[in-house]
């Protein structure tokens, strides 16, 4: 069965454009020669490797559970560090193909250098041992700062009775009340308790739905069982704590209509002690008189998920066919905890298939927006589809139900969803894109 069959064809009006596809970028090879001097020393190479790969998160006040800024801290757990790197668990990075911003991988040559350093007596090298420093934050020109009015307390461990549907998430509506439209270039999330905060997902809202939910809940923010309105959280980006800012490449912006609110879904993980979340969100605008194209969101989503207990199954999203060319600027996946892997494919008019995202080991606590280092141009006629593998067996430790229970859920843009962030190449196609996200959402709700 071809990917175009069976899925709804979402037409956006015809804009014929001839496009030359960019070639996929190859992963850069590590600079091997500097890493083979034996045995390596802390001041020579090892400190630098840990500083670039780990210390952005593993430093005081950051998201990592312990600091790795000193030679003792690394020596005292070196075997474990090597183990988790080799297991692909650290640094957190889910996609296995593609070239994205903030890509976090440790080249094999560096892992082997750390191993040889340990075997060679974990030597310091010349002089006193270097103390590593967390990279100073990327440059950020905050045009608007939004803060929670009070802290929201999360418990020391998850309470299964707490939420229905999504777990360990809390919604917060930040009113912006802008009197004119805004163009957002970047979003920064400053967590109050970085070790328990995992993911922040954003949606600018003009429907008032998020405000309504927030007003109705007596606490700071609200218990969030799903999306508010048609626009899914994540439609305007997703940040993994510690991974840096959500920043669009030059020439693109998130459009924010007059009188908007910013709805943020905070996903946390209890750390064994009560934590207070008092989050701050900063928005950076596109500089005046700098031209840029508006990003639109399209869901590649499964509208209804039905899976019996002890079953594994693959779900495929509706197919979205682009009737005009777009630049793909980002992908923001979201899936149930029992999702084990997912991918996004583009079938080009030529019939060629291009894998845009491949996540073989999904972890919903490590998700974020994936921004290709350069936007990917997709020609008119491209069909896009996402697929998700689910493991609803009791043997899957990530299954919140033990023993497994049947899942029957249909909800708006779905709980299996990769949002793609795209901009029309021809401005005439933008009008179609503007309404497309809502239209697809509505059609998913009817399923």
């Amino acid at each position, binding site marked *: 069965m071809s990917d175009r069959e069976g899925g709804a064809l979402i037409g956006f009006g015809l804009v014929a454009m001839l496009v030359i596809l960019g070639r996929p970028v190859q992963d850069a090879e590590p600079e091997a020669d500097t890493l083979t001097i034996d045995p390596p020393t802390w001041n020579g190479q090892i400190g630098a490797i840990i500083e670039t790969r780990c210390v952005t998160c593993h430093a005081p006040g950051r998201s990592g*559970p312990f600091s790795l800024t000193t030679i003792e801290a690394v020596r005292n*757990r070196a075997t474990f560090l090597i183990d988790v790197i080799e297991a692909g668990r650290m640094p957190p990075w889910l996609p296995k193909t593609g070239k994205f911003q903030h890509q976090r991988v440790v080249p094999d040559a560096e892992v082997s250098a750390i191993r040889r350093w340990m075997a060679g007596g974990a030597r310091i090298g010349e002089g006193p041992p270097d103390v590593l420093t967390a990279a100073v934050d990327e440059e950020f020109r905050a045009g608007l700062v939004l803060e929670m009015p009070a802290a929201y307390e999360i418990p020391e*461990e998850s*309470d299964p009775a707490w939420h229905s549907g999504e777990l360990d998430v809390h919604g917060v509506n930040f009113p912006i009340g802008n009197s004119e439209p805004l163009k957002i270039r970047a979003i920064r999330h400053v967590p109050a308790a970085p070790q328990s905060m995992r993911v922040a997902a954003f949606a600018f809202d003009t429907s008032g739905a998020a405000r309504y939910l927030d007003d109705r809940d007596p606490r700071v923010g609200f218990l969030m069982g799903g999306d508010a309105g048609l626009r899914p959280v994540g439609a305007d980006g997703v940040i993994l704590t510690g991974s840096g800012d959500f920043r669009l490449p030059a020439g693109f912006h998130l459009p924010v209509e007059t009188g908007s609110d910013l709805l943020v879904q905070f996903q946390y993980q209890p*750390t064994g*002690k009560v934590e207070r979340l008092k989050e701050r969100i900063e928005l950076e605008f596109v500089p005046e008189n700098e031209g840029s194209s508006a990003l639109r969101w399209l869901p590649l989503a499964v509208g209804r998920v039905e899976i019996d207990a002890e079953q594994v199954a693959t779900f495929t999203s509706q197919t979205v066919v682009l009737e005009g060319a777009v630049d793909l600027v980002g992908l923001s996946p979201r899936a149930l*905890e029992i999702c084990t892997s997912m991918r996004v494919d583009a079938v080009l008019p030529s019939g060629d298939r291009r894998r845009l995202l491949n996540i073989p080991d999904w972890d919903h606590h490590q998700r974020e927006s994936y921004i290709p280092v350069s936007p990917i141009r997709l020609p008119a006629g491209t069909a896009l589809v996402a697929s998700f593998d689910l493991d609803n067996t009791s043997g899957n430790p990530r299954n*919140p139900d033990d023993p497994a229970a049947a899942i029957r859920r249909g909800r708006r843009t779905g709980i299996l969803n990769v949002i793609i962030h795209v901009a029309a190449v021809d401005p005439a196609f933008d009008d179609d894109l503007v309404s497309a996200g809502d239209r697809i959402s509505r059609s998913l709700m009817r399923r």
Partner: protein
Amino acid sequence: MGITTVLLAALLAGTGPSASSAAARYEASIAETPPSSGESTLPTFTQDRLAEFVLTDAKDVTGAKRIVFAADGPDLVVVAFLSTTCPIANASVPEIRRLHKGVKEVGGRLVAVHPMLGTTAESAASHAKERRLEMPILLDPEQRLVREFKGTVVPEVFILTRSGESWTLRYRGPLDNLYAEIGRRRRNATQAYAREVISQIVSGRPVSITRRPAVGCLIEKVAP
């Protein structure tokens, strides 16, 4: 194998069924249990050997030493190896508190022991205070105790009972099933393995599973 009549007598004095009948039930159930269930080949330690483990009390400002397995102490001792920074050990803190309460209620003793390199009395004490760990917090900087028990990760608990002069390791493994692997965490644990073992011991039932693989942060070994 020694049967823990002494322990049961101590634990059950004045509560529920009489000690002797509990012990009898225990003996009977052991007799019915096939050897593969594990209780027949459990590691044992002599009182003299274990009495050698005298560890520094992190909460005591004068650095007092504590005997973990005192000759005149209770016959049920639980050792929980912890760390101040391991996220898996820390996520288990609420369960450690529940286990501590359960062990205390039946007259046993639970101690937390820090085997990780670089743990100081100050860091262990402030960690215990911040996370409301009220049991004794002991340091094992030379990793003597953890080596004796062949422990490799934190968190892991070791549940021992004494009969006469001999201690038997009745269970070693994770507190519960919160983690299946590193990075594979259940939203909530659904099985409290260690507490279940305590209730099996107290009620005189055999311990059904005496050893499970612990999941956690690897203990870096002290340089020889």
